[in-house]
């Protein structure tokens, strides 16, 4: 069953066309990877899916869980279970990570009709998820992303995913800026969150992430369209031949 259907999506930023007819269907429980060169529209697609303002949708639709979400605000989509792990997680000075997590988790729990967790139960819940991501209590007490290293930021994003339990998780270049050890911790974290009710969309430049998180399907995005789809072997081909042939296809 399809969790996400993107149909003929066209979008502009500042009047400049970025997406030129994206079609993509992700079934419940599947992991898809979108690869593509710089400027192909990968990050734009992740922002549009998660509801960031500033994009003009000129054609097409996005159906998530049977709902047309294009008119839904970002927070409404989040409460519906769409999660974006940011390429550049944002600092929020003075707000402790734990407070941020609790506020977000309770907003989503209320929406789902589950009781809010009190401070003690919530701490237990977070700790159970944090230890495997190598996140200590002291890191949870620090302000959100403030002074964090690249690896710490990315681990914190995955912790948020684990706590918020989304149905669709979009990971925007989660591998960027990670050394090989950190990549392993983050990938293990994501793999632990794979299950038959959760779909994941990985956005990446590089094949190496897909050695750790094995996708069900791989798509190539070039010039704002999906130009080829295949299984995990497509990523290996790209690694060998690069993106140049896809640019030619579109031109």
């Amino acid at each position, binding site marked *: 069953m399809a969790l996400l259907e993107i149909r003929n999506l066209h979008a502009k930023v500042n009047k400049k066309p970025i997406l030129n007819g994206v079609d993509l269907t992700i079934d419940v429980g599947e992991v898809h990877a979108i690869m593509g060169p710089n400027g192909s529209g990968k990050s734009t697609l992740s922002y549009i899916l*998660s*509801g*960031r*303002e*500033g994009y003009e949708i000129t054609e097409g639709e996005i159906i998530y869980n049977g709902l047309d979400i294009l008119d839904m*605000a*970002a*927070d409404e989509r*989040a*409460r519906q279970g769409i*999660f*974006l792990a*940011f390429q550049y*997680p*944002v*600092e*929020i*000075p*003075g*707000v402790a990570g734990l*407070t*941020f997590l609790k*506020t*977000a988790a309770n*907003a*989503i729990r209320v*929406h789902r009709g589950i009781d809010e967790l009190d401070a003690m139960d919530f701490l237990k819940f977070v700790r159970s998820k944090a230890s495997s991501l190598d996140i200590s209590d002291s890191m949870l007490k620090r*302000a*959100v992303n403030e002074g964090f290293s690249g690896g710490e930021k990315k681990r914190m994003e995955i912790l*948020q995913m684990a706590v*918020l339990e989304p149905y669709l998780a979009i990971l925007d270049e989660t591998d960027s800026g990670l050394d090989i050890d950190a990549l392993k911790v983050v990938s293990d974290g994501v793999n632990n969150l794979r299950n038959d009710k959760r779909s994941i969309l990985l956005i990446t430049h590089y094949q190496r992430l897909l050695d750790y998180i094995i996708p069900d399907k791989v798509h190539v995005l070039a010039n704002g369209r999906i130009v080829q789809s295949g299984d995990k072997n497509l990523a290996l081909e790209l690694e060998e031949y690069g993106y140049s042939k896809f640019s030619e296809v579109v031109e």
Partner: protein
Amino acid sequence: MSKDTEAIERTKSISEPYKYGFVTDIEVDLAPKGLSEDVVKLISEKKSEPKWMLDWRLKAYKKWLEMTPPEWQKASFKPIDYQDAYYYAAPKSGDKPKSLDEVDPQLLEVYEKLGIPLKEQEVLAGVEGAPKVAVDAVFDSVSVATTYRAKLEEIGVIFCSISEAIQNYPELVRKYLGSVVPYTDNYYATLNSAVFTDGSFVYIPKGVSCPMELSTYFRINQENTGQFERTLIIADEDAKVSYLEGCTAPMRDEHQLHAAVVELITLDDAEIKYSTVQNWYPGDEEGVGGIYNFVTKRGACRGNNSKISWTQVETGSAITWKYPSCILQGDNSVGEFYSVAITNNAQQADTGTKMIHIGKNTSSRIISKGISAGRADQTYRGLVRMQRGANGARNYTQCDSLLIGDNCGAHTIPYIESQNPSAQVEHEATTSKISDDQMFYCRQRGLTEEESVSLIVNGFCREVLQTLPMEFAVEAQKLVGISLEGSVG
């Protein structure tokens, strides 16, 4: 009602636009409209004051007549017509009540609506760990009830209305009243000295740490009245006290003047922590109505090793104009000023502090967080003065401004004067905006626009909010969110 559900109810009720905007229909005793020597005499007479008190008031009144209102502030407003206001309004309920049982039930209802735990017996009977707060409640011109008094008296702490203190502890009042803010100090303080109607008085004897928070709630109810309360707090040697004031007023179309004076005195090794959560009616979105909050607050660290700490959360009032200050006379004395000022819609604020370093090795710390939204305008104005004898004195000042939207303003005006080469003064200032990235990050995690603003702003103010007593910190956090409702989008 259990403590938990009570806390929840209070939290819920605070999340309405301005829930304190109600007017209570209570019979009042009003002085004739306008200001004259006769009105000053009448106020003094109503309170059966001794002659020295009346003489002091009259000196202040004569001085005031010679003064002109100051005009150096950044806020702008039409001149106030002092003859078009009442200077005394007291709920009519016969003699001053002896105990809470004698207080007009309608008044108690008002304070209940405001969420003030006047009924001390409830608190006394409350569960272990329930907040213990002694409250003095001032309704228009008079103090209507002071709770916990008996319990405090056992350890020698005096907590009563200033009117009662004038009757019962005249030697203390005469010694300290006007000793920090003289009756000649400034236009509004001088006016207050002439017509002050009530306020709180606290004396903590030598070596006593006051075992509970002391608190005053001020309420302006009557139309066209000014509120001129006077608060005097003395911490004798090695004494400690934490004091909190809260303020509300009904929604009215006219501006109302609130010109209070607060004086704090600490002797050797004493400490006063004074916290304010100011939520006077701010006026409507267009700037109609609201309180003019022109207040003089000053503390004197007279003794060595003494400390005065001001924390203020200023979210209400049409115009806030005040500078809670510290005169650091004693050697090694410490002054602190922690401030959060939020202005939204058409509100204006010109606020900050003065740290006057006189004694050796005195130190002061100023942390000011200003948030401006809507068309509001806000100024931090602060003076740090190192006098000749202030060897080794130190000051650290940090002023951060946060702007929401494109139509508001924030200004930082520091005055630094140093006459002592060994003194150190540090000043840091920043101005920032809530970024689109921060907003999107929060909203992508499921927070609404307003929840996101509230979270980000609370983070911005955290350093100040965490200096508030626990019981009030939570309320202050909610208030921060509410004050900014409608400021984004």
